[in-house]
């Protein structure tokens, strides 16, 4: 086993790890934000909201993330030359860079999977608690904000750690659209030094550490938040 390349590639490895963390945190954060209305719409809402939400979840959970990523990056990209003036528009920096596409694709994926989980969570909040809230004169919005949402979030807390780990494991796919997170850096090292195993083992180790950090973090969080009962 040879590790002579470590020193030379250390800065790239560090920036790659940072990129991975950015992808992970942003995707889970925005994905969860999206997941709440998507889950809620399927439990309450009029058909005009619940049906698209349902379709969204089914489609994004039923197709590989890799295809979604390529569809977004190359599929959209192939349309740009037909859209006049797009290169001078203010969003061009976001359209040309590959990072936003990765964020969008991962966010939508997290939203689809979490939306499904939130749907179950909203459904499983005991009706009694909701009725008590209505009986004490809360408006629908107050009900949502004070009882329904917090209780649903409490229910899904244990699964959030798992969801973060799953998203972490999806980040390597970003390397296929030129976003060089830690796996991408590992690929570059493999290709330039022709060492097969060492870079792979190193980044496997990085992922195990990151997973460990996530698990520990959530354990600590769970102990601070009151546990759901019933």
């Amino acid at each position, binding site marked *: 086993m040879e590790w002579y390349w470590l020193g030379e590639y250390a800065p790239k490895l560090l920036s790659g790890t940072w990129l991975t963390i950015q992808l992970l945190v942003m995707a889970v954060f925005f994905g969860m934000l999206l997941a709440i209305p998507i889950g809620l719409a399927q439990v309450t809402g009029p058909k005009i909201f619940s049906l698209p939400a349902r379709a969204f979840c089914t489609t994004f959970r039923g197709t590989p993330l890799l295809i979604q990523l390529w569809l977004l990056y190359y599929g959209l990209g*192939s349309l740009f*030359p037909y859209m006049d003036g797009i*290169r001078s528009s203010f969003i061009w920096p976001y359209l040309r860079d590959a990072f936003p596409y990765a964020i969008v694709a991962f966010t939508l994926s997290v939203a689809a999977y979490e939306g499904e989980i939130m749907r179950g969570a909203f459904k499983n909040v005991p009706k009694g608690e909701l009725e008590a809230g209505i009986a004490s004169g809360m408006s629908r919005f107050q009900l949502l904000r004070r009882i329904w949402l917090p209780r649903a979030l409490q229910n899904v807390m244990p699964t959030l750690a798992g969801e973060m780990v799953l998203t972490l494991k999806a980040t390597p796919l970003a390397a*296929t659209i030129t976003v*060089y997170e830690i796996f991408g850096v590992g*690929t*570059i090292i*493999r*290709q330039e030094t*022709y060492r097969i195993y060492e870079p792979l083992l190193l980044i496997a180790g990085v992922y195990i550490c990151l997973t460990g950090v996530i698990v520990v973090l959530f354990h600590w969080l769970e102990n601070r938040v009151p546990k759901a009962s019933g």
Partner: protein
Amino acid sequence: MKKLKSVLLGSAASLVLVAGVSQAEIRIGIDPAPYLPFSAESASGQLEGWEIQIADAICAAMNEDCVWVKTAWDGLIPALTSNKIDAIINSMSITEERMKTIDFSNKYYNTPAVIVAPKDSNISADAASTDGMYIGVQVATTHANYVEAHMGSATIKSYQNFDEHNQDLFSGRIDAVVGDSMAMQPFLESTEGQCCEIKGDLHDVAIFGPGVGVGLRKGSDLKAKINAAIDQIRADGTFDRISKPFFNFDIYGG
């Protein structure tokens, strides 16, 4: 359940046995991503192109059976060293860096690298003109090495395949690409390629090496056979016969 398990075990064992029957053929690794005029995959899954025909001619001259093994570009060298394939014929340049890990036959062609950009762009082969620009290259190629060595003030974007960086050049995400002059032709002649043109030739013998050769494992006995075959097809006119429909100059190079 027990019966199912034994059936599964039985078929698994037979599969392994079938796969394990040793073959006397030479397994040639190639990435099926399009790299015309050298190689591409037709709609029916057949490999076609100048390089494919030359490889077939080399095999015929050696009197051996060759079989193509489709592999990802960046997996070709690992596949060679771990004995999944016996040779690489995929426009891989002979370079010192690669020679540390694998061996090469003599070259079978040599074409210069070029930089391609939109027609209205000021980019040229001059490194200063690429300041702050986005340049696309295929990962793990001599073209990537050139851009890293000579065009350090530009932002380099590495792509898994040739057609991907051309697509992004067309989309406008990158300002230029560096690649092989011949491989660029089909793109520049296509509808999407109308946007762009060749801006200049790039030369650096140390980086680009003497040309393209057949990648082989170190100490492989194929090296002598393939070199002899290459000499033979050049001597008996097969090389020229295959090249004429594709190129109007001598692609073997000086």
